[in-house]
């Protein structure tokens, strides 16, 4: 990596953390094809030659303008090439109530204790420790959110991360802490200003404390030549609920690692994903539902539509630790294959060390149902449109799980636009 690493004001502890990240990155071995955590993946896609820490984006104002999202949001931050381009702070009454939404850079000083405590507190256990270390070492930027006790944030908080220019490497980070009985929705959008090859290495840390509710949606729309890592760590407390949805529409090689840990009784984690793998895209997803305490629930549903030479890998584990009785865990991956060259790999897994549990998983791979297609064709609907309708119907089972209709409509329109383009090849 070349280029100016650090701009802005960072406290000493952060500089030390960066150094540690760099040391670990150098030390840790690159993933090998034989590594079980990289099975079916493409480790050759991980060559990072030619990427650098980029300079500022050319036309910041234009990117801010293109950052159209939900329309109504509680706060809105736009970043380009690791730099803040625009920030719309939350309304005064929310700030007075204690809501904090600011850049990681600002929070590293102003909320040093909280950031230090939660920033990448969980090790990346699902195969990408090296890239988590790279993230830690890089010019990280993004948003720190603290939702105070009992506060319900009325609208979603929106964050945009842009990458621009060939060889640019970006390091988006989102850190959300929902304190007791608070409620919030956060939407991360990842976009490319152009089609140039880029590298994104993002991390999000979600902490949901007792009785709190967090909805987190990441919409990944990187350009077609981008290599991207998005590593997640979610901690769910007593009677708390986290709904995390990963929507993958862009990128060339995309690796998601979603790790959800139920740390107290009554915790619930919904892990959802909608993926379109078209052209020569590869979407590689690893998940972990970690039941550390009894009486917790986790429910995972990942759905993939594959076309062109698209490839997907799903590898998930439900782990029930000894003593975590009355666990209710579910895991399902569904693949719909739309072309002869596409390939879906599914590895749903269970590791159960407590006996009084209900754990199930399922994996299905099929194509569009001929009879359903025939039904639509018989009613004069053109084949491409019919196929699109059926695939959207397939995706709706995931999208329907989003609790807010406006957010749902917005995500649906993005998925539909991408699907339409993908089906036309």
């Amino acid at each position, binding site marked *: 990596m070349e280029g100016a690493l650090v701009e802005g004001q960072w406290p000493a502890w952060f500089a030390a953390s960066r150094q540690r990240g760099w040391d670990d990155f150098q030390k840790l071995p690159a993933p090998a094809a*034989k*590594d*079980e955590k990289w*099975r*079916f993946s493409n480790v050759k896609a991980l060559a990072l030659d030619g990427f650098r820490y980029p300079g500022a984006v050319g036309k910041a104002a234009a990117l801010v303008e293109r950052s159209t999202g939900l329309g109504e949001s509680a706060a809105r931050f736009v970043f380009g090439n690791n730099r803040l381009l625009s920030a719309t702070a939350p309304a005064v009454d929310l700030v007075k109530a204690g809501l904090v939404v600011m850049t990681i850079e600002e929070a590293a000083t102003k909320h040093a204790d909280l950031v230090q405590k939660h920033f990448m507190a969980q090790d990346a256990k699902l195969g990408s420790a090296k890239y988590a270390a790279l993230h830690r070492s890089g010019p990280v930027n993004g948003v720190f959110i603290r939702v105070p006790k009992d506060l319900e944030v009325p609208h979603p908080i929106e964050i945009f991360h842009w990458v621009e220019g060939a060889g640019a490497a970006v390091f988006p980070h989102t850190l959300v802490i929902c304190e007791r009985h608070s409620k919030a929705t956060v939407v991360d959008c990842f976009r490319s200003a152009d089609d140039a090859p880029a590298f994104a290495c993002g991390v999000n840390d979600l902490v949901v404390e007792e009785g709190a509710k967090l909805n987190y949606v990441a919409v990944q729309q990187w350009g077609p030549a981008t290599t991207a890592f998005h590593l997640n760590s979610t901690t769910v407390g007593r009677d708390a609920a986290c709904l995390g949805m990963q929507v993958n529409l862009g990128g060339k090689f995309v690796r998601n690692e979603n790790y959800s840990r139920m740390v107290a009784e009554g915790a619930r984690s919904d892990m959802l994903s909608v993926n379109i793998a078209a052209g020569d895209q590869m979407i590689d997803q690893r998940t972990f539902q970690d039941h550390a305490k009894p009486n917790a629930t986790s429910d995972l549903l990942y759905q993939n539509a594959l076309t062109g030479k698209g490839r997907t890998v799903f590898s998930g584990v439900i782990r029930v630790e*000894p*003593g975590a*009785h009355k666990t209710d865990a579910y895991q399902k991956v569904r*693949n719909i*294959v*739309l*072309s*002869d*060259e*596409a*390939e*879906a*790999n*599914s*590895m*749903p*897994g*269970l*590791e*159960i*060390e*407590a*006996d*009084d*549990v*209900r*754990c*199930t*998983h*399922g*994996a*299905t*791979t*099929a*194509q569009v149902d001929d009879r359903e297609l025939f039904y639509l064709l018989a009613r004069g609907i053109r084949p491409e449109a019919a196929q699109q309708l059926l695939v959207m119907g397939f995706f709706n089972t995931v999208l329907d799980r989003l609790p807010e209709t406006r957010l749902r409509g917005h995500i649906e329109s993005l998925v539909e636009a991408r699907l339409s383009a993908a089906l036309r090849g």
Partner: protein
Amino acid sequence: MSDAQTQLDIDREKGNFRYDVDYEFDAGTGLTEKTIDYICDVKDEPDWIRQFRKDALKKFLEKPMPTHWASKDLENIIFDNIRYYLSQGGQKPKKTWDEVPEDVKRTFERLGIPEQERKFLAGVEAQFDSEAAYSNIKEAVGKQGVIFMGSTDGLKEHPEIFRKWFGKVIPTGDNKFSALNSATFSGGSFIYVPPGVKVSHPLQAYFRINAENFGQFERTLIIADEGAEVTYMEGCTAPKFDTATLHSAVVELVALKGAKIQYITVQNWSNNVFNLVTKRGLAMEDAEVKWIDCNIGSRLTMKYPGVVMKGRGARGEVISIALAGDGQHQDTGAKMIHAADDTTSNIVSKSISVGTGRATYRGLVNVPRHLKGCKNNTECDALLINTNSRTDTYPAITVRGTGNACQHEASVSQVSEEQIFYMQQRGLTEAQAMSLSVNGFVNDLVRQFPMEYSVELKRLIDLEMEGSVG
């Protein structure tokens, strides 16, 4: 015969007892080219086999242990301490039934094993009196043109058939343990069924029990020619005691066009045994290979019977029951390779973990590019008996292209307290109720076993469940 040699050496661990036996042929510990020369000389094998074994040895030494995905327990195998070839020749063991530990005798009794058989299984008699049964069955199927003999005899007497398929379904270098088997194999069966012949009797390894069939490194090759049908049974439900702690068999099945092979295994090694087996069948056009597999004993079993469906319309099936008792790890599963259009496969796996037992399902389903009409169905159910029991499921499913359908489903549950309560209300003890529930859990699979096996299996589950509750 010195006294030391006749002494009974009993380990206090359950099932982990052994005798000192005087072997006529013993290749000594460790594995080198010399060991292989020794085996070849003793068995008077042709040169091509000697070369085959030596090539396999090289591969075995080159290959790493698969510990990047498999149990670390494999690291406890000390290859240098293992004897790779032992044969008692014509000698009789010098020990008596009285020396067999009481609990072992009781186990035999509870399972209803015939007197004569018990002695063989306990190792006090090398010659189980099955010679008559074997020659009868050999004669009966011989009339149909079926070849049924030991694999060593097979490679000497029928090289034209044997060499064509030997090592073709499971290449030597398939994995570290198939290479080990290829280097050191002895024992196992060779069966050839001519075109159109439906073998009237199920063939059993059992019939050839005294022909070193329960060897450490068995090698079995079964070929069903076009339209032929055969059922083969291996193992038995009784606990099998042995000096050897490493068992690594290779079984290759070839079902030519329209043929059907059903292979039934019941494994109940004692608790100190590593049982690392490679089993694979090749199914040509419209052929069917079905594995029925039951694993009860051993310290660690790693066994994933597979079917390569090479011809259109071929069918593969694996029915698997695993019972992991205290301290055991049953790492079993299935592999289904769809290599032609319109092939179908089915996997049904049920596992039970008792005490600190760990049952793992590991599966692979592969539907490569440009195939149409391939279907796979996989169902895995795990039952956990105690709070410290463990179960894992690791399937891997790859589907390329459209026109194929794969579905996998797995669940983990425990015996319902309500059911147990209901049965206890009706006068059953908790252990009896538990046994009944567990038997109910595996019942639909057990029914697919031959009668005598299913009866023994039920008794065995009863036995294993004793003391697991309360």
